[in-house]
């Protein structure tokens, strides 16, 4: 019985810990800060904050395996809007410290696997087919 109680307590504590960054970010308090993107997102920010990884994981299979293009949640589009531009006019990688993806992931202590493969800056004009 003691064991069980301990496990429950640990789980509760864990839940509180996981929930806290999201909660604080919503409240607009000490959360991570990052450059603001231009325009509006494909979905409302609260939904994106909670589910962006599910959306991306789901859509990556549709795109790659079924060849469906142009669906709503595209990592390429995320990068297009959220990469900021440095003083010298060059785009800054979204996974650079303090940038959109990295700031929040660092805050929540979740590593990003995407950018070991995916481009971190938007498609440049001359690279377009």
């Amino acid at each position, binding site marked *: 019985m003691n064991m069980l109680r301990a496990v429950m307590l640990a789980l509760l504590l864990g839940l509180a810990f996981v929930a806290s960054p999201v909660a604080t970010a919503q409240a607009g308090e000490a959360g991570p800060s990052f450059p603001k993107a231009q325009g509006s997102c494909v979905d409302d920010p609260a939904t994106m904050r909670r589910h962006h990884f599910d959306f991306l994981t789901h859509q*990556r*299979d*549709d795109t*790659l*395996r*079924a*060849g*469906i*293009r*142009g*669906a709503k949640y595209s990592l*390429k589009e995320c*990068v297009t809007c959220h990469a900021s531009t440095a003083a010298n006019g060059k785009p800054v990688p979204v996974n650079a410290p303090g940038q959109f993806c990295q700031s929040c992931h660092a805050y929540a202590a979740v590593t990003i696997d995407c950018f*070991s*493969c*995916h*481009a971190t800056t*938007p*498609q440049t004009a001359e*690279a377009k*087919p």
Partner: protein
Amino acid sequence: MSQPTSRRDLLKAAAIGAVAIAPGLTLIAPAAARPLGTGASAANRWGLLIDTSKCDAGCTACVDACKTEMGLTGHDRPLTDSQYIRKVDVTDPASGHRHSLPVMCQHCAKPPCVDVCPTGASMKRADGIVLVDRHICIGCRYCMMACPYKARSFIHEDQSGQKPDNPRGKGCVESCTLCAHRIDAGGQPACVESCAKDGRAAMLFGDLNDPNSEISRRVSTEATSRIRADLGVEPAIRYQGI
């Protein structure tokens, strides 16, 4: 009873119409962009026809275009750098006759790489394009052992500066995608484009399932062959003059 008859007539008329328009159609670009939101379809079978009599050993336009398109910068290590497409120079020892041709993933209809892959990362799209799903590739390299065409490369080190249309990273296997991203947008592979522009115009891209496409027309009227056709993996890349 009368209804089916009329429907059949209608179909007949439609068929005649299609034939009539077809010759005009084949001269236009091979494919229209697929509507957004629809998937690759088994109605298509994308392929290439490469005329090796036009190709020569001095030209590497296709290879260079591929490297640029796919962001294959390399590390000056020829044994471990990725190559999606390469020029192979072939010499007949008996006659001394030489010719040169590009070899890439042959987008086999019965791909051994897909059969052996333990996770299903190696996969064939409905339209016959063979891809590596790098999200689930574990880097076991069994597909490289199985591919009869040596078409695959393993990524031997960390990558940076990838092209948005070709994500690639350390520890996974990769190969020619037939420029699926271009095909889905209604274009043709980068190698074919550059072969026509800067090369010897030896490559033709098209839909082998569409009887009215230029590639189908040529394949059905001219002698073509495939590399190691004896293996029975049914490549989508056809060659002339090998």
